[in-house]
């Protein structure tokens, strides 16, 4: 996850982290997202929840009155799950959120080990104990 932006219903960016991955002013995204949602709502009655551009994608979700926008790599498989986690966090926390809190949330969610990594560690341990026990068994056959 590259960034998190919290936008209120007036279109102001309340808190943001990871804007350095994009160019321009972080305040602009608030206006853009709220204008976009308003427009889409007007023409279709729905809201947009995903935008993709080049290597990046934005996921847009709602936490109470606020929009939670998260920035991901276009092939990030955990993007939806991470976005939902941020939404849950913001909903719980209410209005009391600033850049510091968001960067903590970002760190917390991004550094969580993936299933692949866990499997890697597990198989590593298995291989290691397997080596040890087969060495021990071989030794036993030689000696006893």
């Amino acid at each position, binding site marked *: 996850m590259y960034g998190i932006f919290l936008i209120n219903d007036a279109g102001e960016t309340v808190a943001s982290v990871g804007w350095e991955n994009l160019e321009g002013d972080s305040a602009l995204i608030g206006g853009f997202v709220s204008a976009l949602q308003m427009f889409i709502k007007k023409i279709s009655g729905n809201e947009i929840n995903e935008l993709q551009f080049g290597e990046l994608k934005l996921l847009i979700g709602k936490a109470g009155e606020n929009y939670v926008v998260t920035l991901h790599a276009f092939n990030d498989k955990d993007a939806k799950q991470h976005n939902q986690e941020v939404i849950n966090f913001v909903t719980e926390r209410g209005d009391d959120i600033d850049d510091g809190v968001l960067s903590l949330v970002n760190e917390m969610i991004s550094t969580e080990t993936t299933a692949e990594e866990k499997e890697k560690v597990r198989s590593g341990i298995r291989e290691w104990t397997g080596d040890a026990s087969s060495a021990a*068994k071989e030794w036993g056959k030689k000696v006893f």
Partner: protein
Amino acid sequence: MEVYEIAYLFLGLATLVAAGAIINYSRKRSAATPDPDIKKAFRPLYTFAFGLIIFGIGSLITFYGLYNEIVIWQYNVYLNFYYVFYIFTLIELFFLSISAAMIMQQRLIFIFMMIMIAFAGLLVFNAVQTISGVSRVSNIAELYINFGNVLSMLLLGANAVLFLVIANETKRSTSLALGYAMTVQVLAVPRLYCDHLGNSPLLPVEFVFAISILALMGPAMIAFAFLRPDQKISAELIGYGASFAGPVIVISSLFSTGIVVDAQIIALAILGSVAIALASGTASYTYGRWRETRQLPTALLMVIFTSLAAGQIVGMLGSFTIVQGTIPVYFDFVVTSFSLAIFSAIAIIAAGYRTAASIPLLLYIPTAILMVQSYPDPISTAFLNYIYLGIPVLILFFVPVILFARVWRRMKIARTPGRMRPLGMSIGILIYIIIRFTFLLLEFPTLDPGYGLVVIPYAVLWLSITGRLDRL
């Protein structure tokens, strides 16, 4: 002194013997092979044996401290008596960890174990610092000691798992014995017996007693396994372990009750202990033979000698008032007469009457039940109450004496080899009945001389059943 405290003496000595057996085995086996790779494989075993030597010495020093009640730190009984034991266990673990790391070829495990050992050492050092300062009686010191003990238990447990895994793969009694010994060493951590005041063991004293028997079996099993390394995993090994632990516990309890002043009793107790060793040794031997032949009489012989050994141990402990009341006497009476009834059954089977073999038990069981109902009267009263039943059963016990003697005569006339076996059984049972039943009906203040004298019939039976009498 308590029984488990005296047991440290025997534990130490047996561990030294076990270490010697391992070294001897490794020396012989590595000399027998020209392959340098296999020669190298014995290094962990030497290291392991060295660890055992350290532990043995530690146990002996611990016994010396307990025996002479040497006071170093008067405010903490654990540290006072078991400080040496703790430190020596850590040194043992140092060598055991080297051995384990060599076996598994894992440097990381070695480093991890070394850190744990160093930490356990640091903990006890801190505990000593705490009690020798202002605190004297200190819960923090207790906590340090407990945690240190947990660490050494974990390390011993890891070693036990290692050898049990190897035993599972190789199906050899040698590695099983090593695994067993490590497991019981985990159980026998003295912390279970002794808190900082030394008066309230964590476990009930009966458990401590049982644990010390199990712990004593460890080194004995190692010694037996490495002396006869060709045997497969079998309960025979446990039997040989018990044939060491049983007598040791009897002798230890004799010392702990303080009736050791009487030379006659010591002599009887030692003879009785040898008798236990012979009986349980014969039981293990017959179990081993039964595993090979699957013959019913051999299995019954195993049952007989197991019960006889159990009766002898419990009866002797009862005489020393380690086990209270008349229960030991009754227990001894029931198992002994039960064994003799089965002996009669075996003799009848051997004579070729398969159906008639049930007669001894049919007669014996109601008699035994009636007599046991006289509890807690003395056993002689019980016998006299039901003498009209007791006498026929007693006569029944002489059946194998006569039948085995007749078998021997027939074999002698036909010049069949192996004829000393029935003769030995006949003589052994005859002497056994005469000795035991004469003394069982009399009352003795401490030790019934019958417990000591039965060493003669046990020796005869052992010689004849294992076939040694024919080779004499």
